[in-house]
């Protein structure tokens, strides 16, 4: 790798943190989902393609839920069958990164990934509860205080 690129790697590592790589894979369309937005606990078909657009059989496919967070979790999905397809049932809603790994022509390991948003099947009660509590404290609290501020006598 040229010297210049080594130094570039530094800032890329620090600031992009994998976003670029994931973005490229998605753009090349190596991992194609039956639905753009799969739904939590609903089965969806995945197809793995190589860089030439041909289906990959026997690719190991895994999923990382909530990538880049302290609660991220990686689970295997399975191996792609003939036609490069396999079924996946998302076990968590939110953002997930799907990674497919297989042996390329030169017996080198090829890895491609894509990021998808998994829809919530139903509105999450605990999430809505926290949203309301935080909203009440912060937004309603602000509004009440600002209202009182406007009613109070000013400096002069």
């Amino acid at each position: 790798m040229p010297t210049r690129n080594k130094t570039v790697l530094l800032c890329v590592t620090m600031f992009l943190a994998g976003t670029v790589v994931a973005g490229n894979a998605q753009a090349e369309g190596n991992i194609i989902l039956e639905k753009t937005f799969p739904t939590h606990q609903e089965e969806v078909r995945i197809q793995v393609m190589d860089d030439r657009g041909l289906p990959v059989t026997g690719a190991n496919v895994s999923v990382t839920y909530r990538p880049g967070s302290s609660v991220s979790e990686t689970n295997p999905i399975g191996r792609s069958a003939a036609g490069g397809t396999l079924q996946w049932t998302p076990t968590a809603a939110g953002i997930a990164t799907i990674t497919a790994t297989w042996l390329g022509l030169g017996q080198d390991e090829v890895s491609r990934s894509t990021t998808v948003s998994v829809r919530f099947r139903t509105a999450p009660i605990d999430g809505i509860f926290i949203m309301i509590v935080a909203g009440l404290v912060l937004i309603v609290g602000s509004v009440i205080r600002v209202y009182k501020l406007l009613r109070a006598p000013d400096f002069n």
Partner: protein
Amino acid sequence: MALYIVATHGQALPKFSLHRAFKGKRLPQTEQRGQWKSRAGFILAASGSAIGLGNIVFFSANAYKFGGGAFYLPYLFALFAIGIPVMMLEFGLGNITARAFPGSLHRLAGKRGEFAGWWAVVNGCFLTMYYITILSWVLGMLVGSVGELWKPSTAVPAFGFEEGDLSNPVAYFFHMLSTWKPLLFVAIIWLLNVLIVRKGVESIEPVTKVFVPLMWIFMVVLIVRGLTLPNGGQGVFLLFTPNFSVMKDPAVWQGAFSQIFFTLSLGIGTMTAYASYLPKKSDLTQNSIITSLLNCGFEYIAGLAIFSILFAFAIVPQASTLSMTFFIVPQGIGAMPAGVTVFGIVFFALLLMAGLTSSVSLVETVISPLRDKFGWSRKRIVTVAAIVGFAGSACFALPHVINPGLEDDGTLGLTLLDLIDHWVFSYGLLIVGLSECLLIGWLVGPEKIRNHLNSNSSLKLGYWFDFLLKYAIPAMILFVLGYSLWNEFTGGLYGMGFSENYSEEYRFMRFSPPVILTVWFVSCVFFALILTWKGEYADAE
């Protein structure tokens, strides 16, 4: 409008230097110090200072990192247990003494206090310099968002990226860094800061009265756009759905405590400087609560906008202000089906306004104490601060622009900024926060601040306030500092992990993490000592 502040107070005062603050002596330079014209003006300026780039993009990404909705519990706890009490303390310090941070601590706690105050100011100088550099990049992106930024991705040869390697905004950002433009943008941002602070609060107040409401309007525009994207509303579920397994992780609590300290601009002296321009009979308790809630409320609604956009386009958030500002959110905006240019301009204009209202408060935090102590004219200090500040900000941007070909190590600027930010933010602010709590809690007496706060407040503080200042907040800050230091020692000094990336020719750069740490620490101590022991306050006894 009163042109000067007379420190009068009817209470019988205990011994110690606080006595001097209350005994009715007219403070020097108050005739030139100025005063906020209205309470709303002060609240808008204080909340504008607190609401910065981090509020818009960093908070929600931090929440995502630490368990989504579960993060809100330690965050709200930290807001009420640390944020609002320290905000009250900092408002109280400025209002009691009608002086900026070092002067107020000098008046209350003598030279030791003043040293802590100047440490905060010097630390704040570093922060101001690189904050303005980041702001200059925001200005560059705003200019670019008129058109160039959203065009198909081009190659960035200076950084070794070929066409299509990066998404449009990222390519534009790196391309901008490889030119001289950031230097021009740094000059423009400094000029804007000078124009806004040139007359002190007299010129700051009208600007914040326009910018802060506009920021809320622009944010609402982004929320509406985000939520109306296909599946945008699902992003809100993602942000708030909790994963409570994180609660036992000390890193989550550390993240929440740090977040509150940083988001409210505590430990810099900004709030003390702003409060020093308040009339003596101000309701500081209510002002602290309103400022804190407005700041955190803004973070709350910003999360709705950002996460709806990220979910709609399946973009992974990163808990980094720079990544979110320049790469991740712009990627989402660039992927919008329509109105990309309009929403791009709205986003970067919002960031620019939020950044400017914060940067002027940072500049004022430097100017105000120098005027208090040395009695220099505002014009003189503003000029000196702008020249020195511009040179500093340019240092954070310069390595990118002096060598577009990057034959040398062209990433020094980012590295320098990243390294200094780590020490200034993760340690500098917290050290100041700890110092002020210990000084007031153990040396001055928290009840004295509480009495002053209660004297004009409709909401009376109880003994719990003393307990928080004396025991609880120092303990929590010590926990955060200790945990961070532990990670530093066990995981290696911050930045050392990148040493392998330097070429043989620039191998010496691998020493930059300890060198930057030393420069930061020695500078803070050295200049704080000089400023503490050089000269005396005009009203010193």
